[in-house]
């Protein structure tokens, strides 16, 4: 389990940033990595944020800083 520490909104295209926000990605929210990649690729990812499962790509995930929670 981890918590979102910061999201570098400026690193994200406007649209992705906005959709990320409306899906509930915010600093302080619990986040958990569930699945990573298909076949030999590292993309896409599935994460659990709040009570929702969201699929996203690594380039977007790179803008999200997390810290492990106790």
């Amino acid at each position, binding site marked *: 389990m981890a918590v979102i520490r910061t999201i570098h909104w400026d690193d994200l295209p406007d649209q992705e940033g906005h959709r990320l926000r*409306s899906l509930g990605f*915010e600093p302080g929210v619990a986040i958990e990595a569930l699945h990573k990649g298909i076949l030999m690729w590292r993309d896409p990812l599935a994460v659990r944020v709040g009570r929702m499962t969201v699929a996203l790509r690594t380039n977007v995930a790179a803008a999200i800083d997390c810290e492990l929670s106790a």
Partner: protein
Amino acid sequence: MTEMPPLVALVGNPNAGKSALFNALTGARQKIANYPGVTVERKSGRAAFADGRPIEMIDLPGAYSLSPDSLDEAVTRDVVLGNLQGHRRPDALVIVLDAGNLDNHLRFALELIAQGLPTVVALNMIDLAERDGLQLDSQKLARALGVPVIETVAVRRRGLEPLMIQLEEALHNPSPAIEPVAISIGAQNQRARDIARSVIISETAGRQWTRRLDAVLLHPVGGVVILLALLFLMFQAVYGWSEAPIGWIESGFALLSDGIKNAMPDGLLRSFLTDGVIAGVGSVIVFLPQILILFLFILLLEASGYMTRAAFVMDRLMAAVGLSGHSFIPLLSSFACAIPGIMATRTIMDQKERLATILISPLMTCSARLPVYTVIIGAFIPASNIGPGIGLQGLVLFGLYIAGILGAMLAASAIQRFVTQSRTSSFLIEMPRYQWPRVSDIALNLWQRAWVFLRRAGTIIFAATIILWALLSFPKAPEGSNISQVEYSVAGRIADGLEPIVRPIGFNHDIALALIPAMAAREVAVSALATVYAIDAADDDTAATSLGPKLAADWSLATALAFLAWFVFAPQCISTIAVTRRETNGWKWPIFMVTYLFALAYAAAGITYWTARSFGL
């Protein structure tokens, strides 16, 4: 004086069970139309208060916020704010919330409540939340939000009555107009989370079916295998399950045709009914079973929650040609029909990706091509086995599907690189919890699809067939001349003009003739050929035999293969072109689409023909 019934809009996040609630409230009494000026489907229906007074309900497209990321969301915003020209603003809102996902869904609810319309919240799928170990205090939620909250389970019709009572009350005593307060999305998210946390009574680890299923279905290797197996099963079913019902429909039309032939004297009207109406429209309606099976699978994949997982599995592959998993869903629908496929692109956020997806969707082998493929393959490809369980006919059909997919991939790469000049695509999507699809919801949806198809067969295809029949039947060839009726008719003369253009790719006079009405819809090519041969054979007894043997006797194999290659690419469907025009707001993109697809079709047919000829076929 009659008053308009109050208009109530159902609004909420995607995957909140909104459509199930809408179906439960309105039953099968639904109307599907379009919102004025846009092609977004407007589902409306009637419900009634306890005393029988009617209300009109609309099911708004699922949205995450009132500042839209997609065209669907834009419609939801415009309707809620009363900004959509020619559409009245709803008198009240029913906000549908997924009880198991309050943390993420409450923010949009706060934004909606702030609009000041009379509002009732449906705390939906409360049973699923309880299954996952969540106990909620809905009264506390109502106090925090300042609007009534009703626990509902749409699929079990639980909570519908109290919902209607609260709705009536909200309509009668509108809360005093409040000025919408602009607070930042971050602050809304914070408040949503605080409220969500405060209404949870208890939380225990539930059974977490979704997590367990995802471990299998999103497995880096297993997930791919399962998706491929599902797609294989789907296409297998389209052919395997449809044989019997197609047989019933065919014998039904044959009986009807014989009945008319016995009951009526030979003449213009009889020719019109048997050669025109029944031969033409009948040859298209036989494909209803296949279309319905394909739609059944797509609806099941969507209702169960699997569709977004399929998008997840396909995302990386789609990225290779500049698209993303978002494009996979519309493209899969395009195997049934490009029209719902193109309309499904409205959920794609990236507008360049959306455009590229629209432009390649006609390359997915839609069900309208099946009549053409089936007839030609049946007539020219021997039904032999080239291996255990692998028939040559099936293999050719599979090859045609693959040719379309490869063509689409190449076209997507080229379009994203040179036309839209898009550098990146994006993939960001909520994956809902799995649930059992509800039989009545699927049945209702399937019925709506069937109705749309039959209406099309009854209008566009009917009209095209009638016009063609008339063009083929007049003017009458002089008695005793050795020119056939088809050659002598208006259509025959038009085909004479077209023939020099298609002669180099191996097409004969009959094909030139069939291509004209097939612009209306591809499957008309079959009914056109059927009508041509039916009219030509009107005098002799061979009229009863089916189309295949006649083609086999008349065409070379090279011509048949070229004809198949043509239909892999040719954009022959007026409806698709019209939908593309509406969805891209102008003629530029449909003209581009038609041009590049015809160029591809011409090249593919020509290459096929001359290659086949060089092998002496």
